[in-house]
């Protein structure tokens, strides 16, 4: 077989193998993104025909205080959830990597919520938070309206999400900590480093790649939280837990204002693409520590 025939055969094989996924990707991922862009310039309620309105949806959404509030709530949510779950994960990981018996079982227990349906867990927590007959008030002997009190609703949703994610974060920090070569820790100990200095000056800097990975993946997934909000508060009370994914959903499927929902979707997409691109740029020139010595 000549080289050219060989190449042609390879190209045919390659595209034949890719055909199904390329079809799926084009129809159900790339084309929908174009449709969202198109929709963002239309006014459409699914009943009367779609009408081109130029930038009207953009103007309306970007000057809408309720959408601004939704972005702000999402930001506050991210700023509460991520530091707490990262701190707790780091703490759990450092306690679980001391060679104490039972560490493996405990680690397994902590991961359980992460693989469970967020919607079902959200419903379970809705009951736990219930003012009458709820477990939390029974434990505390109170009758607090956790999910309908404007000051408590967002912290409650945050708590559920943190509860779900800590095990996942712990797992990555455990792997990171176990990857630190013993000789580095020994050397630090010989130099007289105490437990506190050891953690802040040696372990934490060496965990930087893990930390970065955990922060970026949690940031991206936290921005998209939907199920828990749907099950716990539906965005209320008074939009206090109106995270952006949940807001887009209700704009599209409860208010049927598809054009405005599309603009919000574009905003979310731009934010997440920016996060990912920033991460890639940072990754390219981040500091790593050579542990091979």
């Amino acid at each position, binding site marked *: 077989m000549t080289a050219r025939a060989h190449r042609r055969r390879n190209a045919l*094989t*390659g*595209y034949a*193998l*890719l055909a*199904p*996924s390329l079809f*799926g*990707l084009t*129809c*159900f991922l790339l*084309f*929908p*993104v174009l*449709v*969202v862009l198109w*929709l963002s310039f239309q006014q459409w309620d699914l009943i009367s025909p779609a009408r081109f309105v130029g930038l009207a949806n953009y103007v309306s959404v970007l000057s809408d205080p309720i959408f601004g509030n939704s972005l702000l709530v999402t930001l506050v949510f991210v700023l509460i959830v991520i530091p707490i779950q990262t701190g707790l994960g780091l703490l759990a990981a450092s*306690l679980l990597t*001391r060679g*104490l018996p*039972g560490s493996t079982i*405990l*680690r397994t*227990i*902590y*991961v*359980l919520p992460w*693989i*469970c*349906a*967020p*919607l*079902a*867990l959200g*419903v*379970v927590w809705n*009951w*736990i938070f*219930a003012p009458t*007959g*709820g*477990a939390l008030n*029974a434990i505390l002997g109170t009758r607090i309206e956790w999910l309908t009190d404007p000051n408590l609703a967002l912290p409650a949703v945050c708590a559920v999400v943190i*509860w779900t994610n800590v095990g*996942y974060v712990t*797992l*990555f920090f455990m792997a990171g900590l176990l990857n630190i070569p013993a000789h580095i820790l020994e050397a630090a100990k010989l130099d007289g480093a105490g437990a506190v200095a050891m953690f802040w000056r040696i372990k934490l800097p060496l965990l930087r790649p893990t930390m970065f990975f955990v922060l970026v*993946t949690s940031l991206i997934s936290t921005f*998209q939280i*939907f*199920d828990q909000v*749907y*099950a716990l508060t539906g965005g209320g009370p008074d939009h206090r837990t109106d995270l952006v994914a949940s807001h*887009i*959903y209700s704009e*599209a499927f409860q208010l049927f204002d*598809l054009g405005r929902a599309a603009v919000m*979707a574009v905003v*979310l*997409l731009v934010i997440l693409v920016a996060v990912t691109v920033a991460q890639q740029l940072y990754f390219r020139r981040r500091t790593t520590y050579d542990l091979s010595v």
Partner: protein
Amino acid sequence: MTSVSNAVRRPLRAIAIYAVLLLAAVVTLGPFLLSAMTAFKTPEQFAQQSSLAPPNPWTLGNLANILTGPADFGRAIGVTVLVAVFLVVFQLLFSILAAYAFARVEFPGRDALFWVYLSTLMVPAVVIVIPLYLMMTQLGLRNTFWGLVLPFAFGSPYAIFLLREYFRGIPQDLIDAARLDGANTLDILVEVVVPLSRPIIATLVLITAVSQWNNFMWPLVITSGNNWRTVTVATASLQSQFNGNWTLVMAATTLALVPLVALFLVFQKQIVQSVAITGFK
């Protein structure tokens, strides 16, 4: 190990550590146990006693009620299993084909295409749910089995990414040897690549099955009524329908969570590893 001897030398410290870790385990498992207990209580007991009291008497009434009653949870379980099995098979099949092309076949535009595949990972579900809903409605597939599965049946970029990494680790010699024996690409895939990739394929089967069981937003949007709704959608609608009727609602969450917990108990090692490799979502 020095850390063990540390713990032995300082038992107080070890006790403090265990206290923290066990408290965390109780907080983690508490909601599962309390909600399952509630599912087995009679509504009378739930109304009269503390919600922390164990079931007395135990009853299967709540479970039976939602499985066979108008909520028809039994049907929802059937639909969800069907969707999960269908997508495990087809998503994996088409992902394997694509991953092999990216890993082992030289063709023009390969790297650019791979980059396009990867970049679709950035697109959040809530962004494409709106256009997918419009498309499926146009095709007359709203509230049908095909509406549920079609958008996800042709492979997943994430699975393709993971499989490609794995396939690249397979020694080229094995593939060359098979080719010399007259095997074509399909033979090589079936006889060499797939058998050697069992661990990653098992991981992906678990991930796909679990994430389909857990999937909520798409089934919520594309189904209506009892016919094609999945377990999560049925649970959500039970919650609003039987608002405050917690023994029934907790029976629903128990049914939604029990298969996951069971899977977790059986495959805990593989699942923990899968989470560590892939993040699982």
